[in-house]
């Protein structure tokens, strides 16, 4: 069930899941566009039942929108929008997928995994309210204190999804550009 801040709860139809191990449960969050006709993201509560018996409830979850396809975005035009989710702590989460650039990046021999090749592109971004109004909720200092997490990333057969990286993005301008990235 989605539990928007200051909004009414929105329930998704129940889905069948199977425990991954005796102590863990892994499942793909269903796309609400299929069942409700519109995309939902943000705060949510997950209840797991067996029959009518509630096994556990996870109340303070944050459901991310589908991964934003960065390769498609940079080919789309100079002005694009990405989907993000805000949690109850006022944190903004932006999932980015670089698979579109290919999966032939070079991995270290001792750490075989699928990587995307380094591809240079530039991006400038701001929060947006309406057609052109930026929202005053992000400071440069807060941008500098960003955190990075892995999405789906399999190494030695283990999916490292959700692991926080030790490094942060530094939004300092690159030479002759305002801000930029290279995947």
């Amino acid at each position, binding site marked *: 069930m989605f539990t928007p801040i200051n909004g009414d709860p929105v329930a998704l139809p129940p889905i069948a899941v199977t425990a991954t191990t005796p102590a863990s449960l892994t499942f793909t969050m269903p796309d609400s566009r299929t069942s409700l006709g519109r995309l939902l993201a943000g705060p949510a509560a997950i209840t797991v039942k067996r029959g009518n018996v509630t096994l556990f409830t996870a109340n303070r979850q944050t459901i991310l929108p589908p991964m934003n396809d960065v390769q498609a975005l940079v080919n789309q035009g*100079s002005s694009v*929008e990405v989907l993000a989710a805000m949690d109850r702590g006022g944190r903004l989460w932006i999932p980015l997928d670089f698979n579109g650039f290919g999966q032939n990046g070079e991995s270290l021999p001792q750490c075989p995994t*699928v990587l995307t090749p380094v591809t240079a*592109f530039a991006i*400038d971004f701001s929060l947006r*309210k309406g057609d052109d109004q930026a929202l005053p909720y992000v400071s440069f200092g807060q941008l500098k204190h960003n955190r990075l997490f892995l999405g789906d990333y399999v190494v030695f057969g283990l999916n490292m999804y959700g692991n926080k990286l030790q490094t942060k993005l530094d939004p300092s301008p690159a030479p002759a550009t305002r801000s930029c*990235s290279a995947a």
Partner: protein
Amino acid sequence: MLCGLNDALQLVVMFQLKNPALGDKSTLLELARDGSPINVKMENVSLDPDVAAKLEAAEYDSAHLPCYPAEP
């Protein structure tokens, strides 16, 4: 700027918003109160070769990691 770091297939970026984002007058909350995702506008998106050339001149990325493998 990301380069050497960002060979992961997927990343999730998170940053804290200012306190008013959760305040009573927050326009951001109003946008999300029906459960909709937040739209973040990206501008000046470019794959132009001249942009790439400038980026490729960088020795280190924003995580202070080398952008390209050292020459043998």
